[in-house]
């Protein structure tokens, strides 16, 4: 573990922490402009967070340690992911935690803490949000792990740094059928995991259509700020993971000199993906809950096809 790796990883965490609300702001602004509105500007989520952090949090009667622990724990898992996933550099000191299965597991752990907090409130909305979130989590797992299989089969390892390094050395692999199919499957996975349209509408007010929002209805002030921040960080990390797996050009190795280029590349790639996601969201509507398994089954078929083509065509 040398000093440059430490500095690069710290830079990575700072970029994610600072840039996540900006990415959400960018997506909201793109959406607003496409809908003909003026939008509140890219910096609005930061203004919201700054204000929320200074408001009093609330502990409803009847809740316990699960409710209290969820916001810092959710943010903690997001910070670990920001340090482990190779966004700016492949030489993270958390390399032994940068296994694709471990990343998937940490994302699931974050979701579980929120679901347990929702059940801890004892309200009907909390239970409903937790129940729906767990159903979607269960149905998304096969797609993720089979897509990981497809990606790691040609590399011989599930370590993220290895996969990025292999893709950097052999760029044409990205255009192979296995890679493209896995990318398509993982895009649907990212949408399901972060609760975007068409799986979940993050801006809805109708409780019966909520999945993620229903779990956080009881949080206020500082707690809510941490949860919103962690959610935007998870979105950023997942979009960054997509770029690292399929568009890794620009990621530095262990040298500090390549960091500015890596930073510019990450910002550009994340911005492009975010704008693309926001644009697509303008054109689609939310699926009803019992149609979501069909969408996830479709993404599973794509992932299985990715594995099959990596075996038979490689």
């Amino acid at each position: 573990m040398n000093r440059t790796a430490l500095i690069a990883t710290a830079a990575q965490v700072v970029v994610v922490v600072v840039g996540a609300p900006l990415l959400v702001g960018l997506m909201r602004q793109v959406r607003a402009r496409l809908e003909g509105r003026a939008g509140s500007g890219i910096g609005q989520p930061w203004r919201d967070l700054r204000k929320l952090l200074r408001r009093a949090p609330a502990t409803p009667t009847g809740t316990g340690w699960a409710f209290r622990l969820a916001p810092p724990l959710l943010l903690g898992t997001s910070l670990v992911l920001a340090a482990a996933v190779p966004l700016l550099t492949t030489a993270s000191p958390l390399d032994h935690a940068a296994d694709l299965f471990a990343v998937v597991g940490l994302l699931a752990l974050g979701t579980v803490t929120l679901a347990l907090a929702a059940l801890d409130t004892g309200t009907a909305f909390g239970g409903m949000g937790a129940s729906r979130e767990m159903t979607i989590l269960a149905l998304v797992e096969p797609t993720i792990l089979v897509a990981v299989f497809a990606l790691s089969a040609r590399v011989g390892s599930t370590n993220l740094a290895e996969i990025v390094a292999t893709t950097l050395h052999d760029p044409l692999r990205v255009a192979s059928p296995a890679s493209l199919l896995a990318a398509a499957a993982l895009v649907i996975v990212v949408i399901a995991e972060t609760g975007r349209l068409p799986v979940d509408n993050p801006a809805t007010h109708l409780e019966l259509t909520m999945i993620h929002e229903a779990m956080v209805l009881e949080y206020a002030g500082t707690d809510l700020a941490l949860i919103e921040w962690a959610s935007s960080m998870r979105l950023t990390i997942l979009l960054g993971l997509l770029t690292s797996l399929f568009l890794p050009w620009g990621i530095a190795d262990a040298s500090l000199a390549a960091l500015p280029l890596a930073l510019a590349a990450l910002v550009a790639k994340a911005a492009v993906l975010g704008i693309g996601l926001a644009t697509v969201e303008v054109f689609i509507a939310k699926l009803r809950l019992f149609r979501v398994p069909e969408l996830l089954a479709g993404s599973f078929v794509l992932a299985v096809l990715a594995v099959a083509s990596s075996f038979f065509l490689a």
Partner: protein
Amino acid sequence: MAVFKLWRKIRQTGRTAEPAPPRPDGGLSCPKAAALRGSVQVRHVDAGSCNGCEIEIGSAFGPVYDAERYGARLVASPRHADALLVTGPVTRNMAVPLRRTFEAVSEPRIVVAVGDCALSAGEFAEGYGVQGTVAEVVPVDVRVPGCPPEPAAIVAALRGLTGR
């Protein structure tokens, strides 16, 4: 197919939002709004209104007036909110829920009473189901008179909270 048609419509329509009117002078509309600094989350409570004010609030957050550009956003739970937007005279059934909604908001909490019914029970002042005005149930910080008030007035009230 539908995607192309929608895309063409977006291109044709362009920007619907009207240019922002000059900022209302007088600074912030209430001292509690100093902590907000450009961002206010609003929870709307219908305490018994005829929905005329709701239509105007819907227009205020719609594409033409676009109250979101000034930092205001509607949220789904009073716990997430800084300000309550209360419409309608307070009916007997809604008095306690309005009070509870107010208490569910964290400090500093702001109440914006929208419409003549919220301010003085308006048309329904003598109704048997009406308990009173909003000020009789929760303390009111900002008043937006009108029956119904124009979306521009609602937007001006929200701008007075965010300072943008």
